[in-house]
């Protein structure tokens, strides 16, 4: 369906990634945001708090990130699209309730504008050190979806997709921006509202007497009932059966948690998104994401001048990871080169999927700055030898 025009600021703008992300959320129909200030993400909620009163949205600055995350899970149960925004330290605090959203299957979006860590780390400077935390951060087994934009325009476009994926799969979607993209100002084109497709909440049409909150009838995603519509349903973070009632047994855990995994795993093909370029005949494939994908461009050009055949993959969806694609590709190339602003995180996943068929070369860079393109070029050259 088309989005609500009230949230769409159609036109050509000059916006930073944070503002663009905020605009994207409003354009996607987000009407509840809870957040706690943290650099370099705060501009997202500053933008939203300025615009929400004109479109029926509510922003609340909570007392901490634990509260922010819990609040958006609560709001999600009213059918109101909800989001919270943070950076590393706050992201860590949100983890328990990200797990709650996964377990309760409450659609919501969590924006993490990544900065250097660990701990308070580098508040104002870039990092991509939370990508594994995005996948594994909350305890227990579950699957989430994580997206990663590389520009302000993409921050706008992709956060709309984040909301849509959250609705489609009833999962928390993690929007893994980084400080560079968040604070980079570029042209952002916001289309007309009738150009923006959004996924509505999949509300059940069943009679309350027939409705069970986690009944899927063999499908993977249950129908949703809003709080206040008379369904009088129960939901819990405990292992639960189709009625949403706690059942403390291995059998129930298997049924409950396996479906949480399967609904993402078996729909991977629909969710995974990446850009691939010049893969045919490539010896080396550079895989990167976010701001690093833009920095790597220059390194790739430098290395290509030396006659190396280089393919490029830019992950747009970080999780689920394009496992099958990487595994197949690994048989045809010499090495993956993986620059990222961390000590080597996604490279572990690449290495796992390559399964010894080719090398996976990490080009690490700790937080606080982007790579020097020459370092990337050099890593490519070395990998090609």
């Amino acid at each position, binding site marked *: 369906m088309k989005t609500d025009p009230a949230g769409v600021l159609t036109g050509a703008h000059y916006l930073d990634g944070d503002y663009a992300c905020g605009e994207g959320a409003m354009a996607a129909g987000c009407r509840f945001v809870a957040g706690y200030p943290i650099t370099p993400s705060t501009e997202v909620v500053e933008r939203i708090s300025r615009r929400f009163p*004109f479109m029926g949205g509510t922003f609340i600055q909570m007392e901490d990130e634990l509260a922010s995350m819990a609040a958006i899970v*609560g709001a999600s149960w009213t*059918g109101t699209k909800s989001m919270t925004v943070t950076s590393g330290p706050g992201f860590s605090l949100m983890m328990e309730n990200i797990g709650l959203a996964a377990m309760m299957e409450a659609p919501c979006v969590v924006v993490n504008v990544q900065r250097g860590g660990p701990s308070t780390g580098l508040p104002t400077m870039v990092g991509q050190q939370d990508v594994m935390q995005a996948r594994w951060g909350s305890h227990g087994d579950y699957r989430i979806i994580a997206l990663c934009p590389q520009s302000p325009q993409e921050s706008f476009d992709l956060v709309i997709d984040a909301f849509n994926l959250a609705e489609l799969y009833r999962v928390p979607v993690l929007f893994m921006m980084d400080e560079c993209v968040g604070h980079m100002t570029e042209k952002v084109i916001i289309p007309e509202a009738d150009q923006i497709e959004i996924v509505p909440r999949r*509300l059940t049409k069943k009679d309350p007497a027939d409705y069970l909150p986690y009944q899927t009838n063999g499908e993977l995603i249950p129908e949703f009932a809003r709080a*206040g519509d008379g369904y009088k349903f*129960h939901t819990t973070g405990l292992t639960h059966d189709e009625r949403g*009632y706690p059942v403390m047994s291995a059998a129930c855990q298997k049924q409950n948690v396996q479906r949480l995994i399967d609904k993402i795993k078996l729909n991977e093909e629909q969710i995974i998104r990446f850009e691939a370029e010049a893969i045919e005949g490539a010896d080396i494939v550079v895989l990167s994401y976010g701001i690093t994908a833009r920095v790597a461009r220059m390194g790739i050009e430098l290395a290509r001048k030396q006659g190396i055949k280089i393919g490029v993959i830019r992950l747009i969806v970080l999780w689920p990871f394009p496992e099958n694609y990487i595994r197949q590709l690994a048989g045809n190339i010499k090495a993956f080169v993986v620059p990222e602003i961390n000590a080597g995180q996604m490279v572990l996943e690449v290495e796992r999927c390559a399964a010894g068929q080719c090398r996976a070369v990490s080009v690490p860079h700790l937080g606080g700055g982007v790579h020097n393109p020459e370092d990337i070029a050099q890593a490519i050259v070395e990998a090609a030898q």
Partner: protein
Amino acid sequence: MNPKREVIGQTSIRSKVHPVPFAPPRGEGPPPVADEHPLAAYLRMDRIPHIWCPTCGIGIAVKCLAEALDVLQLDTNKVAVVSGIGCTGRVAGYMKLDGFHSTHGRAIPFATGLKLGRPELKVVVFSGDGDLSGIGGNHFIHAARRNMDLMVVLVNNFIYGMTGGQNAPTTPVTAKTSTMPFGNFEHPFNLPALAAGCGADYVARWTTLHVRRLTRSFKEALNRRGFRFIEVIAPCSTLYARLNKLGTGYDLMEFYHNNTEIKNGADPQTVDIGFQGKIICGRFVDSERPTYLDMMKQHYTKVLGDKFVPMPEEGGLIWPPGEKPTTPAAKATAEVREPEEVTHG
């Protein structure tokens, strides 16, 4: 021996302090059956018996809330209950309402999202002392400060029940807990004072013995707005009573019977509870401050005028064209019953 009456039949060995009258043996035969409980409509009867121990007081508090909902004839489709984690945290799973069993300490922020996401809901937070004032204490004070439209019921059993009787922020000095085996030496919270100090609109405390007064407080609180705090002192027989050699939950009920004083309007600063000390009960605060939602609406209307668009009462969900009231339940709830007038006197 209980001085109230003579003992009939044999004496129970259940309570050493207060023996209970037993009937003469009834002989064989199945126990008498009865019809369903009149409040069954407010409870998830398919989950009863609940998990709470014999003589635990949590069930009484639940009963009183169900009674209050029944007397007020509220539209229960629009009432939600949110709990954290703990024995009391299970309440959300036993009430036949939209029930949310959230995470430890986060019931209040979860409920805040629920309320702001669909302002027409009445949201009741029902959780334990450890959950709301320990791990969730920060949310508690801020929700009170904002005068968030939540009714918060805190079952205070002076202990962490679910995890096996550890020290709570409410444990009285010298009371024994599993992590203060030689007696607690930390100062506990005086919760009514905490709530009142942070700006709660309505503050009351009752024990589970005060079933009628507790129900009245629930009724009053359900019918008003803003941050409403009701502390329910309840027996935890299995841990608090056992670790402190206080007998059973029934002995604690007897203790409440003999050691509570009702002082409506008492200064909350004066109602702290010592170990086996006097429990002052009553409605301590009953004021009307503009609530969070009032403040937001008033303020934005003042500074933004006609341009201010509030969150729709029925929530911020964006409906596909022409689909708005399709859910059968949404139609059913269209006929909302008027709540009974309750006087605050």
